[in-house]
C-alpha cells in the first residue's frame, strides 16, 4: 500500500486532469502541471528501500540489574548508503520499562557514513527484556513515499527480582545429604554442637578424648559433635493466577522476591536447592549448588509470570517425584481453599513444609473504595483465610503470614525447629 500523501496527490492530479479534459479547459489542465511536477519530483527523490543501507547498534548498560535500577539504552544508527536521509528513529518501550531520562526517539539528517545517536534511561521492573529492532522512518525531501522499517539491533536485559538477605532460618529438612552443610544431621561426627560421648576407637583423634570421663570410667571415651550436612530444599512458587485473584498485581512480585530471598539464603548455606514454578505450567529447575545455580534460579524467577492451566489448577498435581523424600519444601503462595489438604499430604509423606503466605490484604487494590460493604467483605475474607491457615498449621506445616509491606527476614528469624505459630 502506497502511503497516503502520494496517493492523495496523485488522485488530485488525476481529478484536475479529468476535469480539464472533460471541460476542455486549459486553465485547469495548467493547474495540474505544478501538482504533477511536485508528485513526480517527490517520487523521484523518495528514499526507496533502505534495508541494508542503515545499520543499527544497541548498547545496554548494565545488562543485568535488580528491579528498580536504571538501565541506559543507546542506539547508534549508521548510514551506509551514498545519499543523505532525513531519519526518524524510535525505540520500543516494553511494558515494565519506565522512561526515567531522555527520550526513546530521535530525528535528524543522516549524511553518508554519519551516525545518529539515541540515548535514554529506563527504570525496569522484573523480567527478561529482548530488544530486537528499532523502528525507522526515512522521509524523502518532499515527504512522498517515506520508507518505514525495522532495523535489527538485538540486546537482552535481565532484570532480577530485588530480594532481601535472610540472616537466619532454622528449619531443617528431615533428611540430609552426605555433604557438609549447616543442617544438623542428628548423628555424631564433625560439627560444633555437642552430640554425646562414645568409646575410643583406633583412628580417633586424641584431642577428642574426654579426659575427665576417661578418669571416671577407666576406659577411654571421645566426645562426638552433631554432624552438619547439606539438605535438599525445594522452593515451590505458586504462579496460579487464581491464587492471586483480587489482590494487587504487586503481590506476585513480592512472592517472587520471597522465593529469591529463600533460594539465596539456602544456597549460601550450602544446600541443594531446586525451584518449581507451579501453576500455568511445570517449570522445574533441577536442584543444584553454588553461585551459578543461584543465577539460574534468579533467571527463572525474573521470567516468572502468572498463568492459568486446568491441569495445575489444584495444588494436588504437585510433582512430588521431582522432590527427594525428606526435603524441605518452601511453598510461596497466597493459597486458595483446598490447598490445606495437599499440604497435609506432603507433611504425611515426610517432607518438612514451610509455607510463606504473602497476605493479599496487605496490598490495596488500586481504585478500591472504602465503605461498610468493603469492610464487611474484608472481614469475611480475613476469617476465611484465618480458618485456612489454622487447618494448614494443624497438618504440621510451618506457616508464616507475611505482610508484604514489612520485611520477611524478622518473621523467618523467629522460626525454630518444631515451631508452631498457633495450633
Amino acid at each position: 500500500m502506497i502511503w497516503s500523501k502520494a496517493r492523495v496527490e496523485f488522485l488530485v492530479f488525476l481529478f484536475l486532469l479529468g476535469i480539464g479534459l472533460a471541460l476542455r479547459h486549459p486553465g485547469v489542465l495548467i493547474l495540474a502541471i505544478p501538482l504533477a511536477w511536485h508528485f513526480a519530483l517527490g517520487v523521484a527523490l523518495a528514499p526507496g528501500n533502505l534495508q541494508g543501507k542503515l545499520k543499527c547498534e544497541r548498547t545496554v548498560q548494565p545488562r543485568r540489574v535488580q528491579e528498580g535500577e536504571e538501565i541506559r539504552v543507546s542506539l547508534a544508527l549508521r548510514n551506509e548508503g551514498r545519499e543523505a536521509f532525513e531519519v526518524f528513529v524510535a525505540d520500543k518501550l516494553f511494558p515494565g520499562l519506565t522512561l526515567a531520562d531522555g527520550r526513546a526517539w530521535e530525528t535528524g539528517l543522516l549524511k553518508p557514513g554519519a551516525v545518529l545517536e539515541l540515548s535514554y534511561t529506563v527504570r525496569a521492573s522484573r523480567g527478561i527484556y529482548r530488544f530486537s529492532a528499532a523502528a525507522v522512518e526515512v522521509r524523502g525531501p518532499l515527504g512522498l513515499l517515506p520508507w518505514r522499517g525495522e532495523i535489527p539491533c538485538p540486546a537482552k536485559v535481565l532484570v532480577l527480582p530485588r530480594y532481601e538477605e535472610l540472616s537466619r532460618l532454622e528449619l531443617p529438612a528431615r533428611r540430609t545429604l552426605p555433604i557438609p552443610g549447616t543442617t544438623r544431621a542428628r548423628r555424631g561426627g564433625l560439627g560444633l554442637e555437642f552430640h554425646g560421648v562414645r568409646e575410643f576407637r583406633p583412628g580417633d583423634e586424641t584431642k577428642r578424648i574426654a579426659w575427665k570421663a576417661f578418669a571416671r570410667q577407666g576406659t577411654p571415651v571421645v566426645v562426638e559433635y552433631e554432624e552438619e550436612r547439606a539438605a535438599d530444599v525445594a522452593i515451590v512458587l505458586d504462579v496460579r493466577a487464581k491464587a492471586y485473584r483480587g489482590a494487587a498485581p504487586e503481590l506476585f512480585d513480592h512472592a517472587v522476591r520471597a522465593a529469591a530471598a529463600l533460594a539465596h539464603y539456602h544456597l549460601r548455606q550450602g544446600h541443594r536447592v531446586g525451584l518449581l514454578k507451579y501453576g500455568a505450567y511445570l517449570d522445574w529447575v533441577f536442584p543444584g549448588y553454588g553461585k551459578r545455580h543461584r543465577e539460574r534460579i534468579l533467571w527463572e524467577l525474573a521470567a516468572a509470570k502468572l498463568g492459568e492451566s486446568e491441569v495445575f489448577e489444584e495444588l494436588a498435581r504437585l510433582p512430588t517425584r521431582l522432590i527427594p523424600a525428606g526435603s524441605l519444601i518452601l511453598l510461596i503462595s497466597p493459597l486458595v481453599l483446598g490447598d490445606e489438604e495437599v499440604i497435609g499430604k506432603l507433611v504425611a509423606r515426610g517432607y518438612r513444609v514451610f509455607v510463606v503466605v504473602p497476605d493479599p490484604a496487605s496490598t490495596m487494590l488500586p481504585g478500591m473504595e472504602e465503605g461498610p460493604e468493603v469492610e464487611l467483605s474484608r472481614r469475611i475474607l480475613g476469617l476465611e483465610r484465618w480458618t485456612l491457615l489454622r487447618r494448614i498449621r494443624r497438618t504440621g506445616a510451618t506457616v508464616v503470614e507475611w505482610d508484604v509491606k514489612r520485611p520477611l527476614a524478622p518473621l523467618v528469624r523467629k522460626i525454630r525447629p518444631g515451631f508452631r505459630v498457633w495450633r
Partner: protein
Amino acid sequence: MALIFAWSAAFLAWAGNGFPATIFWLSLLLPPLLCTLGYFLRRHAFWTLGFVGLVGLAMELALGGELIFGLGTLALALFSWDFAEFSRYPSFERKALVRIKLRALGWSAGAIGSGLVLAVAASFLRFSLSFWVLLGGLVLLWLLIRLWLREMQKLYGAETKGKRSLSGPME
C-alpha cells in the same frame, strides 16, 4: 507554518474572487478550518480534506479565468500540504525542528517554484490535439502509471502479508 500557508491560500482565493462578502463565500473558510482541526487533533484525514478543498478553490479560480490566483492558491496549498506532516512530530528541540523545517522549505520551494514556472510556460503554448491522439496519450499515461505502481508496490513490500516482526514481548 503549515497553517499559515493554508490560511494564506484561502485568503488568496478570496482575493482572487474580489473579496466577496456573501454567505456562500464563507464556505472557503472550510478548507483552512479543516487544516486547523488536523493540526490540533493530529488527524491526517482532516489535513487531506483541507488540502483537497484548497485545490478545489484553486480550480474554481482557474475556471473563473483567474489562473495566476489559482496557481498561487495551489502553490500555497502544496506548501501547507508539505508542512502538514511536521504536525505529527512530537515536540523536541526547537533548533533541530527549525533545521528540518528549513530544509523542507528549501525542497518544497524548489519543487513548487519549478512547477509554477512550468505551468506558466505551458500557458503560453498553443497547440491542438486530435481526439484519437489525446485518447491514445491518456491510455499510454494510464499504462505507465499502472506499471509504475506495480514497481512501487514491489519496492515497498506491499506484497508481504501476515504479521510483521516486531520487538518481542516481555517474558
